[in-house]
């Protein structure tokens, strides 16, 4: 009796599976899920979004240009070509003809002028990238001219992954605010289909895309927040997700042996740094900072925390970006040296320091714990405090006497230029914003500003200036340059054509992909 019952249940289960399985006919649209570790976007306005929305927006909107940081070359997008005047202050972009917005409107020079001017006017998010622009002139419907106040590599600016998008004026209210969830605002290959705020965004193919479509391209793209790493791993193993990122290396080791998925390891332009508070005792003492830089267990951290997917940094500019140099000196892990320097610095045995890191980030947490155990060997107590980034930042900007001693954070580029790594983080600031080492060195400022101006005319000279500037940071031990990490992408086996571009961290350009069953 019981046996027949069991058999019955099993059979009905099987039949239900068959029914559900056959419910999808052969010509159903293809779709791909991108499983993200946090919400797919935080603001619908492409002028404002300066966060996770980079994933979604780069598939809906386009820039004038894009930058391929592996090949180190500019890719034409909405602009087919551009010229720059002798003095470097006038940039002229020749726009692509026949481009349509997803809502059917033609794309013209007016749209470029409108978008960039509005983005600059809102002064939100990453709009500062345009700060050199003085005026924008429409020469003819397919030519637009930018006048600059000072020399600046505008081609790189126009290729930025944030705040450089061209969008339709129809999606903006009279009071200049964005009309959320209006479809058809961009010229990109995908347009909005539906969204659940904070959870998922679903895009669908824009048939009239100027770039055309290859066969077997993806019809529907789902950006989904899956905060549990274990669930993301499960989704990619079963093919429920097409692509995922930010898996712990322990999972990566397992997935490498799984024939169902493809693991690709690529340089990322992200590095982990531990900024010393150079203005506050006791770390205003350079000897002490050097001692602490020697006490950091670089290799152990790389092996343990990121499973070897990365390397110890040479200075602030990460491997894979121009301006990186392995000729720069590095602090190696050497407790003896650290001890000697500690004594030289005259630090007492009761030294106690506060390190803040971003709570919720496993890598930062483990790094902090490893560092703490090394410093304990030197008799230095490291008080590690994991806090939400917002609170971490609040503390760093607050009352100077209450600020942290070491601030750990990841940094990544907005512009694909060393300037983007050196300016915000170490250029003198009257009121700190991201220079959380509170580093002040006019010579350094001069070098990197010069390098930036030189970028569009003499890139080799610029490179040298950026390298020299980093040498200063190392001599002054302004920060611990912990590691340049690699990005690990896991794609399901049916996904083809995946290319990786570190200038747009964790962005997948779905238009390039196809599905092969």
């Amino acid at each position, binding site marked *: 009796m019981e046996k027949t019952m069991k058999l019955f249940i099993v059979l009905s289960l099987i039949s239900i599976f068959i029914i559900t399985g056959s419910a999808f006919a052969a010509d159903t649209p293809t779709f791909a899920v991108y499983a993200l570790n946090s919400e797919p976007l935080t603001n619908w306005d492409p002028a404002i979004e300066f966060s996770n929305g980079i994933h979604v927006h780069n598939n809906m909107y386009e820039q004038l240009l894009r930058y391929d940081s592996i090949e180190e070359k500019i890719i034409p997008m909405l602009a087919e070509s551009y010229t720059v005047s002798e003095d470097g202050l006038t940039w002229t972009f020749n726009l692509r003809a026949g481009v349509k917005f997803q809502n059917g409107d033609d794309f013209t020079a007016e749209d470029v002028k409108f978008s960039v001017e509005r983005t600059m006017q809102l002064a939100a998010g990453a709009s500062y990238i345009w700060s050199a622009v003085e005026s924008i002139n429409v020469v003819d419907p397919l030519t637009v001219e930018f006048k600059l106040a000072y020399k600046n590599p505008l081609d790189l600016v126009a290729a930025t992954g944030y705040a450089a998008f061209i969008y339709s004026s129809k999606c903006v209210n009279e009071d200049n605010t964005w009309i959320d969830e209006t479809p058809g605002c961009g010229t990109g290959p995908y347009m909005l289909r539906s969204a659940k705020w904070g959870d998922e965004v679903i895009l669908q193919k824009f048939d009239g895309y100027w770039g055309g479509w290859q066969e077997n391209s993806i019809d529907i793209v789902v950006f989904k927040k899956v905060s549990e*790493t*274990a669930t993301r791993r499960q989704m990619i193993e079963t093919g429920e997700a097409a692509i995922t990122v930010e898996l712990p290396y*322990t999972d990566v080791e397992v997935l490498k042996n799984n024939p169902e998925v493809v693991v690709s390891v690529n340089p990322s332009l992200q590095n982990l740094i531990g900024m010393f508070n150079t203005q506050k005792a006791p770390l205003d003492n350079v000897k002490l900072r050097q001692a602490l830089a020697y006490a950091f267990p670089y290799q152990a951290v790389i092996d*343990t925390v990121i499973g070897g997917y990365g390397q110890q940094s040479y200075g602030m500019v990460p491997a894979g970006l121009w301006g990186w140099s392995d000729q720069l000196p590095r602090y190696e892990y050497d407790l003896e040296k650290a001890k000697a320097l500690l004594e030289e610095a005259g630090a007492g045995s009761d030294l106690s320091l506060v390190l803040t890191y971003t709570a919720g980030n*496993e890598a930062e947490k483990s790094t902090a714990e490893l560092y*703490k*155990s090394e410093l304990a060997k030197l008799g230095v107590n490291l008080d*590690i405090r*994991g*806090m939400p980034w917002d609170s971490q930042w609040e503390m760093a900007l607050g009352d100077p006497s209450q600020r942290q001693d070491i601030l750990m954070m990841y940094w990544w580029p907005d512009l694909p230029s060393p300037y983007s790594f050196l300016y915000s983080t170490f250029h003198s600031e009257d009121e700190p914003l991201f220079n959380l080492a509170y580093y002040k060195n006019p010579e350094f400022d001069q070098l990197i500003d010069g390098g930036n101006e030189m970028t569009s005319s003499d890139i080799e000279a610029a490179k040298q200036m950026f390298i020299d500037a980093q040498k200063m940071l190392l001599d002054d031990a302004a920060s611990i340059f912990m590691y340049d990490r690699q990005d690990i992408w896991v794609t399901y086996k049916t996904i083809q054509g995946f290319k990786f571009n570190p200038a747009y961290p964790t962005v997948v350009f779905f238009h390039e992909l196809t599905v092969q069953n």
Partner: protein
Amino acid sequence: MTQSTSFLRAVQPAVRELKVTFFLLNRNLLQRISMVIILLLILIAIFAPVIAPYPGHAISDTNPKDKLLPPSSQYFFGTDELGRDLFSRILFGTRISLRTALLAVGLALLIGAPLGAIAGGLGGIADEIIMRLTDIFLSFPPLLLAIAISSFLGPSLENAILAIAISWWPWYTRIIRGQAVSIRERQFVRAARAIGTPLPKIIFSHILPNTLAPVIVQASMDIGGVILTIASLSFLGLGAQPPIPEWGLLISSSRTYFLNAWWYSTFPGIAIFITVMVFNLIGDGIREVLDPRTRKF
């Protein structure tokens, strides 16, 4: 009357009650086992630095070369992502859990008991106000108030203790009040009132000591529930902060690794489960012992 004799007189009923309780509990096998385990947990908490094979791993040491190893004769419960011995960390976790739970319950008693004695001793408006106050506090779904308070105070073990105490005290106020109301009518309180003893003195030197006994017994058995609450707060990121080896936090950190390292989540969870369970078992027994309807001796 000296302070010390008054103290002795005050705790006398408590001691008597405890003796009776333990006598009764001792008759049930399950409860006897639970008491042995509780004793064991207390010993572990006290002697953790001596018993733990790698006491340093529970404080600040790391051991990255042995990361995420499965249980073995070297590491009984395996190791975590930084190569720390989970067995040692869980042993130290006993200490943290018991201490924080004791502090939280103690603080809740400190707030709740006097209020209960006042409510029961004074009656009238004071009683009404205090009891409505407990209604309000108890009308939050359990844990929720603690979540709100500790997130506003900032995440730390100390703030979690405070948050739990603030959301827990009304239970004790209610119990004490119930007792106080009946004691108020007893002979010796009436006598004290008749000779003109001031009301506050009656409440704090007659009513409170006489009601304290059952509530302390009750409270000590709430420790299980409190440990669970602390672990939950830590799991949400609102309690203990790394590298403190608090059990809930251990489980929370294990989430990233548990598909490959089953031991990492499993053992801290078992530790919580056993600890909470033995306290609950004893608590259940005590409720039965204290309940006059089911008390049989």
